[in-house]
């Protein structure tokens, strides 16, 4: 994205000097592409024979990744410059087709033998970034900043006696409850509380790791109301159970009982990962024989499970506004999600998101500005609010023109102040200055606010917080030291953890396939076990990354797992009671993530292991070796193969052809060396009564012959392999920056790899270095990374 200093060239790009007259250089050959004639007539003078451009006129070379349709639309509207009506309709389409196929597209350039250095493409926010930013933007307007719920230890429970007609009769007991699962039977909940009628309020917050729909379910023969992610304020607590002043919307309202029937109610809510959400449950019992209540929840990829435990905290978190609009999947054609495409569905998503956010702001307006409609300062406060909002959304202070354009005019165009606020917010949230994170600077080169914005998108997938903007304003990002210090501070924010957590979900392909297995063959491998394994794996990688050492090598060679009681029953270990604990494993068997049962099960068939899936994962993701797509799709038809063969023998048989072996000579040995683990990742010595052979010979990309006898040999090799380190760095870089690494200078990967090694493979330090490289390219800051080569 070279727009920052190439404004002139962009403007000059399509100047068509004297071209309109149509002095075609050559007569058309019959049979040549009809677009070529159009190209000669309208385009060639400025763009050159093969779209190479014109240095004197500052016309860029024509190449890129847009589709023919997209090029045609652009030509129709803009080309030839100043006279776009000369080339429309069929002509525009045929010339677009010609340009695309002759020299524009990556394929064409490959054919022409042109080596492209990857370019930084302008990008809008990805879906995840958009949702995070809207949440943080709305939150940033809230003058009350309650504590986020970090402290562990259950929810606050307030227990009350009741008297006639369901009215509370004084608080009798405060205690914290770790799980909301109670069977009071025919008793009161505590000494001094009568069994016939009583009520309880539970309050606090809970943390979610992943983004998605969370289901909640209440079960009770009594009365219950559940509030999730509503504004809860200590000073407004109304503890009367039958209060009609409930101004907030309950997620579940099952207040009215029906005889002694135990009623279940459920509802779902969309939440963003890496955040704490407020929760309150009101419960009351009145004359029913039995008192009983249970709250369960189901996370994405999870099963119904008791609500509580480590996820909950008694500290009430602020409400987080979550956009619930739907978006099309972001482009993943390069392997990582990025915002380089816009579509109608995307535009509908951001329109709906803008409308929802406007609704939220209007509803909470008085809280945010601190005064009501009747206050003489109301209008001034609203305008100030809007100015702050737009500034926060654009991630920089506004100049006078911007204040007038985005805020001031709307307050003179209408007398209705709320309508003015709505228009201002809608315009702001649909503006490219908001939607395209790097578009903020009017200056030739990015300033400190752009650098701040890049830092926060790289580390948080969200907008800068107040402190970062203050640092930017006071010049703190103008030195490399200052920037480095700020990046380290930002790493401590839960948003950095949330981003790294989703990085691992992406890098380890955790959502790419279903780890579920044949129930008859693996009866213990229930949905609950799969959920626990996912948690176990994420716990492990997060534990490594956020430890003091933050050592990449630990990811691959650690000699422990995190297991809970349910997992110990399958994988060994002696954990009892709720929660996960660190369990040491046999280092001769297991090695870090390579043998984590979740991944072993993920890269396996539903009824057997899959050395190919395991081998491909190890080759590409861990060792960083290229694999071409298979020349021919061969499906694995187990039932057609001799059932007496071992899995290794079967794979050897079906991949024995020369065409296969160019890749499978790499894949198979890696996969075979994992054969001591069955399809759900249990250690095994034998398969169908025969001893497993996990020994294999593997030739490295450098031609070194290795003798592998298990996962630890692969881990040891990866730890000394620059290609493996490079694969990890590249994965982290593209996930953080959402741009190709080579676009940040030809030596980016080499430099980062050297630094990674020098830091003893510190992952946090790597993140900081990547964030710096991403933020500082082409910036005015002294000591910035080398400027990106043009073109």
């Amino acid at each position, binding site marked *: 994205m070279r727009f920052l200093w190439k*404004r002139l060239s962009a403007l000059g790009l399509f100047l068509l000097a004297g071209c309109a007259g149509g002095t075609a250089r050559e007569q058309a050959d019959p049979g040549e592409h009809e677009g070529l004639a159009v190209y000669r007539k309208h385009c060639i003078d400025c763009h050159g024979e093969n779209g190479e451009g014109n240095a004197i006129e500052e016309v860029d070379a024509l190449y890129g990744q847009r589709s023919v349709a997209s090029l045609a639309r652009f030509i129709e509207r803009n080309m030839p410059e100043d006279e776009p009506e000369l080339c429309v309709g069929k002509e525009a389409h045929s010339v677009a087709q010609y340009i695309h196929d002759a020299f524009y597209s990556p394929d064409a350039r490959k054919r022409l033998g042109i080596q492209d250095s990857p370019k930084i493409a302008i990008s*809008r926010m990805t879906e995840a970034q958009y949702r995070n930013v809207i949440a943080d933007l709305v939150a940033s307007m809230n003058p009350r900043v309650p504590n986020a719920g970090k402290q562990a230890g259950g929810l606050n429970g307030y227990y009350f006696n009741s008297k006639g007609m369901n009215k509370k009769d004084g608080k009798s007991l405060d205690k914290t409850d770790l799980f909301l699962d109670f069977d009071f039977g025919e008793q009161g909940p505590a000494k001094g509380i009568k069994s016939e009628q009583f009520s309880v309020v539970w309050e606090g917050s809970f943390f979610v790791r992943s983004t998605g729909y969370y289901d909640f379910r209440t079960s009770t023969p009594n009365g219950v109301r559940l509030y999730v992610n509503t504004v809860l304020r200590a000073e407004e607590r109304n503890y009367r159970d039958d209060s009609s002043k409930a101004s907030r919307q309950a997620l579940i309202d099952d207040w*009215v009982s029906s005889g002694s029937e135990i009623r279940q109610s459920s509802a779902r809510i969309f939440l963003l990962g890496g955040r704490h959400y407020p929760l309150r449950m009101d419960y009351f019992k009145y004359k029913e024989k039995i008192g009983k209540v249970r709250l369960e929840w189901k996370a994405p990829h999870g099963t119904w499970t008791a609500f509580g435990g480590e996820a909950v905290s008694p500290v009430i978190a602020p409400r987080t506004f979550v956009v619930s609009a739907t978006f099309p999947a972001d482009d993943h054609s390069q392997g990582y999600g990025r915002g380089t495409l816009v579509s109608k569905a995307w*535009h509908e998503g951001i*329109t709906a998101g803008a409308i929802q956010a406007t609704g939220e702001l209007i509803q909470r307006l008085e809280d945010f500005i601190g005064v009501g409609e009747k206050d003489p300062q109301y209008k001034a406060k609203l305008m100030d609010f809007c100015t702050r909002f737009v500034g926060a959304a654009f991630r920089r202070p506004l100049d006078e023109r911007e204040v007038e*354009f985005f805020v001031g005019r709307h307050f003179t165009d*209408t007398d209705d102040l*709320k309508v003015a606020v*709505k228009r201002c917010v809608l*315009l702001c949230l649909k503006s490219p200055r908001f939607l395209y994170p790097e578009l903020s600077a009017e200056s030739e080169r990015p300033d400190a606010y752009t650098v701040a914005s890049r830092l926060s998108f790289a580390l948080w997938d969200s907008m800068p917080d107040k402190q970062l903007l203050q640092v930017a304003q006071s010049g703190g990002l103008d030195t490399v030291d200052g920037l480095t210090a700020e990046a380290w501070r930002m790493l401590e924010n839960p948003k950095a953890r949330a981003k790294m957590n989703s990085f691992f979900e992406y890098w380890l392909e955790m959502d790419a396939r279903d780890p579920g297995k044949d129930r008859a063959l693996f009866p213990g491998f229930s949905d609950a076990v799969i959920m626990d394994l996912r948690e176990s794996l994420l716990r492990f990688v997060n534990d490594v990354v956020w430890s003091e050492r933050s050592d990449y090598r630990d990811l691959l060679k650690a000699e422990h797992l995190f297991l809970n009681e349910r997992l110990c029953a399958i994988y060994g270990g002696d954990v009892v009671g709720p929660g996960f604990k660190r369990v040491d494993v046999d280092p001769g068997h297991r090695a870090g993530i390579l043998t984590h049962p979740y991944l072993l099960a993920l890269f396996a068939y539903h009824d057997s292991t899959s050395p190919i899936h395991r081998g491909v994962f190890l080759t590409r993701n861990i060792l960083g070796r290229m694999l071409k797509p298979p020349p021919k799709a061969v499906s694995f038809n187990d039932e057609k193969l001799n059932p007496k063969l071992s899995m290794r023998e079967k794979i050897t048989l079906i991949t024995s052809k020369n065409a296969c072996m160019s890749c499978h000579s790499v894949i198979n040995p890696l996969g075979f060396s994992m054969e001591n683990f069955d399809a759900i990742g249990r250690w095994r010595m034998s398969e169908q009564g025969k001893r497993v052979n996990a020994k294999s010979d593997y030739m490295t990309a450098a031609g070194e012959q290795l003798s592998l006898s298990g996962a630890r040999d692969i881990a040891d090799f990866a730890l000394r392999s620059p290609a493996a380190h490079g694969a990890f760095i590249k994965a982290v870089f593209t996930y953080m920056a959402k741009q190709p690494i080579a676009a940040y200078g030809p030596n980016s990967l080499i430099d980062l790899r050297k630094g990674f090694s020098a830091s003893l493979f510190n992952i946090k330090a790597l993140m900081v270095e990547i964030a710096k490289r991403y933020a500082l390219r082409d910036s005015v800051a002294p000591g910035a990374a080398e400027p990106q080569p043009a073109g």
Partner: protein
Amino acid sequence: MSLNPVFRRQFLRDLGLSASALPFVAGLPGLRAAEEASPAAKRLIIMFSPNGTLPGEFWPKAFGDGKPLELGPMLAPLEPFKKQMLILKGVHNRVGGDGDQHMRGISCLLTGCELNPGNIQGGSHNPAGWARGISIDQEIKNFFQSRSSTSTRFGSLEFGVAVPNRADPWTRMSYAGNNKPIAPIDDPVQMFEKLYGGVQERENIASVLDDLLDDLNRVSRRLSSEDQLLLAEHMQLVRELEQELASAKKNDSLAHPQPDIDPDIEIVNDNTPQVSRMQIDMLVNAMANDMTRVASLQFMRSVGQARMRWLGIDDGHHTLSHKPDNDKVAAEKLWKINHWFAGELAYLAKRLGETPEPGGLNGSMLDNTQIVWLNELGKGNSHTLQNIPFLLLGGGCGFNAGRAIDFKNRTHNSLWLSVAHGFGHGIKTFGKEQFCHDGPLPLG
């Protein structure tokens, strides 16, 4: 109306309803064009007001055929509709069981069946839960929806006016079935959204699109040629949205344009009169556009404590309804309150009466709409469930109107049988079977 009225009216006129491509108006009606409406379109509206009536003021002096219907001053607003009116005395809510009179008053009123045992305690009787069966409006809705000639987009709509935000047997009268209360929507803006989807948002979006294109252009100018392509596509999407909004007016398929709703109306007690009129306007409009043929309009709730300051009354309604008969001051206020409800009913009837029956048929919508005004109690201070003040208005069921009838002692289950039969739904029982033995009330 705080929104700049000129702009808004123009916008509403311009936009109509057909930009169905927009995400925020997804699920727009497959609106039945007026001329397609079945000639036999019949409709039911239930209107509820709480806390009993003033029997002396409500009941006419004379009952029976051939006796001219004379309304007391409290019902004066309804004078113009006397010919289409039926007042039914001697019809009792005899459903017993758990729950206090108010609870059973409202929750058994349309269901005709008992409440489940439950945990909601009133001032007397056993605690209770939700009703055990379906309510008559939902029964008719299901009947209409089961046939393509009478089915509509919504089937039924539940309007509320000043219904508090809580769910218990005092606040619900419509039930989809056992333990399935249906919450009325008492926020006109929410109802507007439900009916006409996103019009306000479209208005605001449309008003910023020109600015947005300016901004995109300004930003685009400083980009490289390759990057400009993405912004050009983005601009194209904005232009498409603009065209969709503009073309909406050409394809306006609403037989009746949607009413003008103040998007910023605050749902507070003192705005109740405005909210009431908005809800009634939307109810009539939804029926005129054949979005539904069944609706309910619930004012407050049983035991409702509305303070009707717009009538000069500062006391809570329920408290007033408990005052003894000889409390002249209280009686005066209750008179005003019920006079106001009668006025709201009159407004509803007037709006229906002045809207011609869609489809070029003779008569007005009122001629084909059966309104039933009712209350959970016969009388506030005695909490009686006898002599519920049933006032029927309009022509939906083809009853022989223009009279008052004293049935002396019939169950209200029988009334609901009459209503069902009036719509061609020949059920033999409704609600609790033992109260249906005498069959429908003879109203023909």
